[in-house]
């Protein structure tokens, strides 16, 4: 207190610096306020058809994924046609809110026109905005769907037009050389036939997209399964799942612009393109869409489509443009498939992959539109130098196209084509001989087929010859050159024989003397049946023909030239029987023909002993047997009664002497007669074929008087014949059941008739006895038409003719005459034992025979039943 301190004068501060704090806060608040007012956004109104999927406060407005606004309110529009959506837009969006600005609702949508907004599945629907030009506005009409092109600030958006979507989806990657450079943003249906796919390419890759870039679909897997393995090609795993699009850079320098439109090809091949060629073929066998066009085994294109035309099939093929130079107007196309033969197996893979069309490039300048024929076979570039020939054969020998033509088993050419000749008479083979072998083929050369397996089984043994496998499968023909030096010229025609033997025989035939024989039957002959002369083959039958008009056969024979001297006027032919057994009472004669002839039938040539003046026509008959031939037998037709027991080989006899034989007997279809063919031996034919000759059947007749024609008991009935006297000859005769009564009566015998009222024991053949000597016989008997008596026809042998005359008495001496009287005793009277058994007629003549009292055939003498005693007294001395 003692010290008074000077008072401190403190200047009172009017405002504390603390007041800066509220000022700062105010400024801050004001700034925030201003800022929030500034950033509070712009309220716009978007008219939507429906508020579905739009939520107040939730649904955002996004631009390229950036939220630029938010739905603040939804109201129904005045005419109840939609909703007005109020959106608070970010203040920064103000420049975009122009008349052409587009808004649309993005929601997950999968419909026929497109798939979009997959992202909204997680984030919810949003309203997308695409800024546009025009004056500023705040009222908008929402788009129904997303516009095709989304604004890409980075990269470009291209439109790809495709006929179908495939597996492309929103988000499918876009590849460039398998590098993903973009993606599919959206797709939509454009009209009815086209789909527009919007693809986005990132900015750093936009330089790859040119105006002439090509886009193609790489969706899914490309599985290339071939024999070389299975190759699975895909751009990426993503493209398997989501599809994908690839493109090439093109060559133009002009870069693509946003919104450029490109076609989307279905694959790289068609995208890269090439030139189209039109191919035609007769049919589409083995050619389908996708069939490759190959040149030297490299695929240069493929068949795109095929369609039917008026005269065949037309293919449209696309050739890869880097190979387009190969296709020129003179290019050649042919179909080549797998060649599967044991000779060679080529292009086995094509069994699986199908045939390909091979291409041979031409040298001309390509033109705009080219049309080609697809040849069935590869063109042969050596054709010019090859020798083309035609080979004719009677039948197809089984060689196929491409079969080899050989010489000494070396291939010298091949068969190009097998076809029938124009008149269908022959088979024609077009063959080609390699240039170096053309000198082998000379005039007169011929071909024979190679048989894979030649089995030659003959009586000499069996030989089996085999060729190589190729021959077995394809066949081959061999050249047999001729000795001629003259070469054949191109397109000459040569012959293909069945075998060398056939060829030789064919040549031999040409050197042979041919003749035609006629035969009444086929004679068991066949083509090739041998002809023998003295059991040596001198020729063969070449043909056996049936003549319809005459029902006969003609046999064409050919005789080796060296044996032609054997053909003489007296040459005759007969067929050999395998075994000729000539068994008769005289003995058995067995003749065995040569074995070949025995099997095939054969003909023997022989000569008549005498130079007969017969016409050659008769000589050219084929006789049934040597005998007939040598007899120069003549053929006649005999009509026999149906009851006749005549068989083939029955003899024809005259007076017991054989003058011919029956060849065959056939029952007439009318069943009333038998038709027989018979031979008359040449020596007698003339007499016995006169038209009044009589033929009859001779059968054995057994009676008490004896056996007539006893040989027929062994040989069977035969035909008897009586020669005629007419000058006319004929071939047709009718045989009678019996011979004429006087058939066996010698012409100069004495004939007469006996009359009796009873036949008694008299038979045909009942002998006439003169003094116990048989001098004649009864030839027949006949009941008079009136029925009162019986006429007996009798004759007396020539040498006894003078013993009978009109004064002769004839009585029946048949049986035993036994007179028994009481006083005279028994008197047995018999002419002979024969008369006891067979009966007989005794004769006694009173007068000497002279010209006036000779008996004639018409004389009728009563046959007495009893001999008068005085007749025994008659003893005229007769003179011959």
């Amino acid at each position, binding site marked *: 207190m003692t010290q008074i*301190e000077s008072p*401190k004068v403190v200047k*009172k*501060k009017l*405002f*504390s610096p*603390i*007041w*800066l*704090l*509220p000022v*700062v*806060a*105010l400024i*801050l*608040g004001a700034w*925030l*306020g201003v800022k*929030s007012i500034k950033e509070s956004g712009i309220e716009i109104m978007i008219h939507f058809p429906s508020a579905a999927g739009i939520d107040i406060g*939730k649904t*955002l407005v996004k631009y390229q994924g950036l*939220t630029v606004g938010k739905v603040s309110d939804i109201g129904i529009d005045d005419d109840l046609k939609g909703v007005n959506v109020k959106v608070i837009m970010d203040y920064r969006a103000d420049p975009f809110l122009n008349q052409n600005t587009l808004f649309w609702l993005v929601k997950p949508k999968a419909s026929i026109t497109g798939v979009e907004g997959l992202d909204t599945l*997680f*984030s*919810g629907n949003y309203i997308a905005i695409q800024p546009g030009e025009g004056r500023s506005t705040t009222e908008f009409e929402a788009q129904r769907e997303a516009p095709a092109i989304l604004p890409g600030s980075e990269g470009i958006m291209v439109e790809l037009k495709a006929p179908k979507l495939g597996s492309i989806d929103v988000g499918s990657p876009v590849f460039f050389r398998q590098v993903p450079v973009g993606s599919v943003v959206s797709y939509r249906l454009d009209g009815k036939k086209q789909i527009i796919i919007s693809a986005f390419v990132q900015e750093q890759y936009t330089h790859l997209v040119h105006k002439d870039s090509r886009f193609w679909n790489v969706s899914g897997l490309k599985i290339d399964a071939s024999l070389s393995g299975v190759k699975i090609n895909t751009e990426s795993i993503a493209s398997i799942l989501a599809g994908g699009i690839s493109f090439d850079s093109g060559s133009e320098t002009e870069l693509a612009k946003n919104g450029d439109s490109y076609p989307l090809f279905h694959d790289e091949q068609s995208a890269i393109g090439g030139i189209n060629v039109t191919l035609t073929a007769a049919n589409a066998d083995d050619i389908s869409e996708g069939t490759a066009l190959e040149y030297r085994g490299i695929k240069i294109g493929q068949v795109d489509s095929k369609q039917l035309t008026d005269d065949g099939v037309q293919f449209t093929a696309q050739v890869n443009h880097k190979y387009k130079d190969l296709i020129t107007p003179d290019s050649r196309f042919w179909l080549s498939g797998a060649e599967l033969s044991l000779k060679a197996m080529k292009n086995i893979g094509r069994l699986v992959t199908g045939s390909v069309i091979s291409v041979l490039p031409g040298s001309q300048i390509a033109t705009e539109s080219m049309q080609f024929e697809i040849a069935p076979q590869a063109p042969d570039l050596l054709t010019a130098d090859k020798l083309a020939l035609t080979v004719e054969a009677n039948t197809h020998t089984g060689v196929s196209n491409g079969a080899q033509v050989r010489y000494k088993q070396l291939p010298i050419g091949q068969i190009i084509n097998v076809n029938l000749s124009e008149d269908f008479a022959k088979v024609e083979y077009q063959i080609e001989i390699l240039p170096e072998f053309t000198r082998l083929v000379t005039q007169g050369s011929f071909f024979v087929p190679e048989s894979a397996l030649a089995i030659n089984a003959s009586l000499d043994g069996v030989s089996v010859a085999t060729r190589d496998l190729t021959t077995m499968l394809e066949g081959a023909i061999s050249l047999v050159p001729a000795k001629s030096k003259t070469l054949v010229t191109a397109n000459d025609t040569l012959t293909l024989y069945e075998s060398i033997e056939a060829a030789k025989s064919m040549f031999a035939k040409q050197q042979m003397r041919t003749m035609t024989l006629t035969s009444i039957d086929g004679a068991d002959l066949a083509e090739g049946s041998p002809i023998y002369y003295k059991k040596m083959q001198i020729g063969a039958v070449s043909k056996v023909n049936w003549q319809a008009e005459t029902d006969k056969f003609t046999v064409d024979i050919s005789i080796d030239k060296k044996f032609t001297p054997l053909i003489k006027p007296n040459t005759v032919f007969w067929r050999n029987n395998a075994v000729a057994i000539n068994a008769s009472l005289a003995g058995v004669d067995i003749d065995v023909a040569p074995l070949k002839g025995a099997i095939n039938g054969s003909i023997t040539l022989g000569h008549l002993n005498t130079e007969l003046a017969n016409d050659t026509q008769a000589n050219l008959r084929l006789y049934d047997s040597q005998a007939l031939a040598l007899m120069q037998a003549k053929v006649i037709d005999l009509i026999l009664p149906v009851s006749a027991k005549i068989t083939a080989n029955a003899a024809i006899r005259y007076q017991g002497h054989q003058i011919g034989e029956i060849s065959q007997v056939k029952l007439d279809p009318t069943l009333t007669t038998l038709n027989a063919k018979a031979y008359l031996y040449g020596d007698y034919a003339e007499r016995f074929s006169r038209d009044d000759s009589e033929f009859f059947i001779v059968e054995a007749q057994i009676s008490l008087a004896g056996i007539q024609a006893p040989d027929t008991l062994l040989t069977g009935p035969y035909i008897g014949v009586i020669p005629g006297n007419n000058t006319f000859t004929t071939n047709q005769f009718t045989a009678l059941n019996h011979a004429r009564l006087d058939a066996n009566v010698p012409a100069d015998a004495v004939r007469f008739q006996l009359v009796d009222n009873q036949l008694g024991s008299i038979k045909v053949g009942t002998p006439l006895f003169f003094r116990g000597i048989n001098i004649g016989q009864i030839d027949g008997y006949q009941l008079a038409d009136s029925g009162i008596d019986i006429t007996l026809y009798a004759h007396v042998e020539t040498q006894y003719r003078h013993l009978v005359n009109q004064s002769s008495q004839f009585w029946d001496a048949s049986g035993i005459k036994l007179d028994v009287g009481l006083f005279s005793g028994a008197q047995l009277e018999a002419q002979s034992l024969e008369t006891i058994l067979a009966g007989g007629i005794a004769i006694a003549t009173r007068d000497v025979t002279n010209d006036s009292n000779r008996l004639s055939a018409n004389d009728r003498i009563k046959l007495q039943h009893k001999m008068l005693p005085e007749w025994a007294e008659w003893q005229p001395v007769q003179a011959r």
Partner: protein
Amino acid sequence: MTTKHTTEDIISNLPPVLSHTDAAPVHIQGNQMGLCLCPVCKKLNRTTNSNCRRCYSKLATRNYASVQQSWALLVTATILLVLANVYPITLLTNRGVVTNDTIFSGISHLVQTGMFPIAIIVFTASILVPWLKIFGLATYLAAISFNLPISKRKLMVGFHVIEWIGRWSMLDLFVISLTVALVNMGQLLDAKPAPAATAFALVILLTQLAAKVLDTRLLWDRLEKTHDTN
């Protein structure tokens, strides 16, 4: 009453030099006796000393500037509280959708979802308490500055209530900071404090400061001066 006791105790403990003031009425103030407390170490100093004998802090019998400071802080807090209520306090990202919530919208969400108790707590802590505090402080400051006729008793009670309740205002910030720390799942679900949180925090801080800065002796001065009928 306690203050009285306290005052009497102080006086009774005064050094003997002051003993002549024993008879003085209880409302006799230290500055009247030439004494003042060191604001820092609470040493009783003579008002004549410009500095504390112990800690050499500056001594002043009354800090009249504190009213001004308190006012300034209070005004700042008020401004910030407005901002804190207007601007979103949290930024919630739910499956990519960002939602801003103001304090009030948060409470209304709670009400909408039926969580009334929490809504009441949050409402109390986030809206009622700050406003009450600011209002209360403003009342005291006005009472100091403009000699408003408010009963001494009410002022006393109010002052204690404000002091006690002020600390609870930080509840909101705790909630926010906890949410931010726990809910952090990127785009799916994420919570972040928004600008209002800062403002709100500043409000709490500034009101606390405003209460702290105010030299309450001025208030007591006024209480002593006026004839309190209560």
